[in-house]
């Protein structure tokens, strides 16, 4: 750092002298010339600038600065322009406390064609492969998002915090999954994420890592690849089952309403028949009664009249009429029934 400043200074001085090509020997010459009037004063100034420049520093809005004096932690500085003792005495380390960091387990969110390989083979699968509580094997990928909540602990308490976080996350997730059945691993991811977060946070607090777990997000949990087809088969079977039931219901729905209609028709038909019967009976009865009322008044003549009227209507309609004297006994030879009909 010091050297950088020296060079910068030199360059500035070069520019001040109107010198463009920085050739080494000329530079030295010029330096000597400049040095002559000011002498040691200039060197002193130069050192002061050097020290002064390492005395202020800026802290971004999303970070804090941890200041150590001779290695010992003295204070934490807030965003903005800050001052410290010159370098060599105080050292500042900037820690991004507001940034949320992300660590992925069991998959890698790669772009393009690598995405397909994310679950298959290699280290990634081993991270995600877990024994479940019912001694099945599940594939559990997840993401841990964390923040640095205590920069002091984060910097000084643990040797390799990120490594600790990774190992702890795996251990915590396995601990939680180890107490779940494969069904729960697949269907109750939310619960697992919450419990794993609690376990992990507790461990990280115990280790004084200064890390705060923002969230654990479970990716799609599954069974290992060789087993996946059989799990899909179950889903298919459920679909098939439903399909069969729906088909049967379809048959049912096709037949039953039609049959109801049919039944309705039969009943209506019967009702029609009933109306017909009763009305006719009433009509017939009324007619007969009316006729009878008149008939009783003049029984004989009415009977004759009715008889004759009927015959009057009837006889002209008839085909062959034979009138035979009552004395005539054998009439059959006269009639030739079969032939008559055929010929006419």
């Amino acid at each position, binding site marked *: 750092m010091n050297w950088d400043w020296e060079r910068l200074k030199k360059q500035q001085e070069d520019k001040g002298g109107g010198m463009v090509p920085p050739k080494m020997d000329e530079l030295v010459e010029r330096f000597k010339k400049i040095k002559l009037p000011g002498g040691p004063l200039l060197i002193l100034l130069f050192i002061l600038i050097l020290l002064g420049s390492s005395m202020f520093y800026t802290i971004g809005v999303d970070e804090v600065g941890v200041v*150590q004096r*001779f*290695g010992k932690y003295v204070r934490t500085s807030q965003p903005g322009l800050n001052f410290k003792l010159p370098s060599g005495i105080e050292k500042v380390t900037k820690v991004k406390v507001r940034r949320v960091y992300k660590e992925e387990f069991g998959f890698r969110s790669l772009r393009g064609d690598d995405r397909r390989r994310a679950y298959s083979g290699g280290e990634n699968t*081993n991270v995600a492969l*877990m*024994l*479940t509580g*019912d001694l*099945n094997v599940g594939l559990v990928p997840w993401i841990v998002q964390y923040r640095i909540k205590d920069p002091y602990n984060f*910097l*000084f308490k643990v*040797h*390799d915090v990120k490594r600790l976080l990774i*190992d702890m996350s795996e*251990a915590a997730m*396995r*601990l939680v999954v180890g*107490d*779940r*059945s494969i*069904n*729960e691993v697949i269907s109750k991811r939310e619960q697992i994420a919450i419990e794993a977060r609690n376990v992990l946070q507790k461990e990280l607090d115990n280790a004084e890592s200064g890390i705060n777990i923002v969230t654990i997000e479970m990716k799609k949990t599954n069974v290992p690849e060789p*087993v996946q*087809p059989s799990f899909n*088969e*179950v889903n298919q*079977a459920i679909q098939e*089952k*439903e399909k069969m*039931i729906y*088909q049967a*219901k379809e048959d049912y729905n096709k037949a*039953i309403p039609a049959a109801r209609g049919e*039944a309705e028709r*039969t*009943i209506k038909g019967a*009702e029609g028949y*009933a*109306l017909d019967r*009763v009305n*006719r009976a009433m009509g*017939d*009865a009324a007619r*007969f009664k009316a*006729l*009878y009322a008149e008939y009783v008044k003049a029984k004989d003549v009415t*009977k004759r009249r*009715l*008889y*004759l009227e009927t015959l009057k*209507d*009837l006889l002209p*309609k*008839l085909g062959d*009429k*034979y*009138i*035979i*004297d*009552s004395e005539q006994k054998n009439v059959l030879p006269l009639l030739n029934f079969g032939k008559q009909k055929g010929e006419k």
Partner: protein
Amino acid sequence: MKSKLAILIVVVVVAAVFVFASAYVVDETEQVVVTQFGKVVGKPKTESGLYFKIPFIQSTNYFPKNLLQWDGDPGQIPTLDKTYIWVDTFARWRIVDPIKFFQTVNNTLSAQGRLDDIIDPAVRNLITENRLIETVRKTNRELDTYEIGLEDIKERPSYTIKIGREKITKKILEQAQPKLSKFGIELVDVKIKRINYVEQVRDSVYGRMIAERKQIAEKFRSEGKGEAQKIRGEKERDLKRISSEAYRTAQEIKGKADAKSTKLYAEAYGLDPDFYSFMKTLEVYSDALDKDSSLVLSTDSEFFKYLKGYSGIR
């Protein structure tokens, strides 16, 4: 004048060299053991800050003060129930006695070797002594193995966890810790990072999982068939019921109508059965006879009684 200045400069430079050689900084993450010709001098500097030593004679040995990581060699270990599993452990440790540490292992790299020698066998012992399920499970928490539509399938007899993973790792720690204190090392904890079946076992486990799934799938299928048949049966039953009910209702209606009409007829015609039969007979004549009928009438008949004479004598 000039030589005085030169001397002054020399003195300042020498003093500066001495100061720089004797001063040393201990970082927050470090602790220092000062040695003089290889021999430890004074107490270890565990507090961070600026310290001084005798230059060129004493030398400083830096050791980390913070939590350190140990990563176990993953290896195959058989469990008590003779299942081979792949166990990957890690541990966290710190140097609590830097002097001991300096004298026995000297640096963190060789410390890792010591840790390997001590933790790995402890892990092996504990895994071998216990059933697999003890290492996998944490508690006796009731597992939810409920499967939709499989309420009646009996699950495997559940095993009661006696120890659980957390206690196993604790025991590993207890076994390893005493052997490490003589190196000035404190083992903070040992954790099982990964535990998996070895490949051959894994395949057979997959086989079992597949068989289990297939069996469930078959159950769904046959349930589907059964359910469908039931619905078809219902359909047939309902069809019969609907048509027979309709028939019954129809017959009832018709019967009632017949009865009513019969009653009406009886009432009316009962007034004079003779007249009724006369009327009805006449009606039947005109209905039954037509031009295809031939009629043979005797002069005896009522109708022709006038044909032979006006007196109507037959």
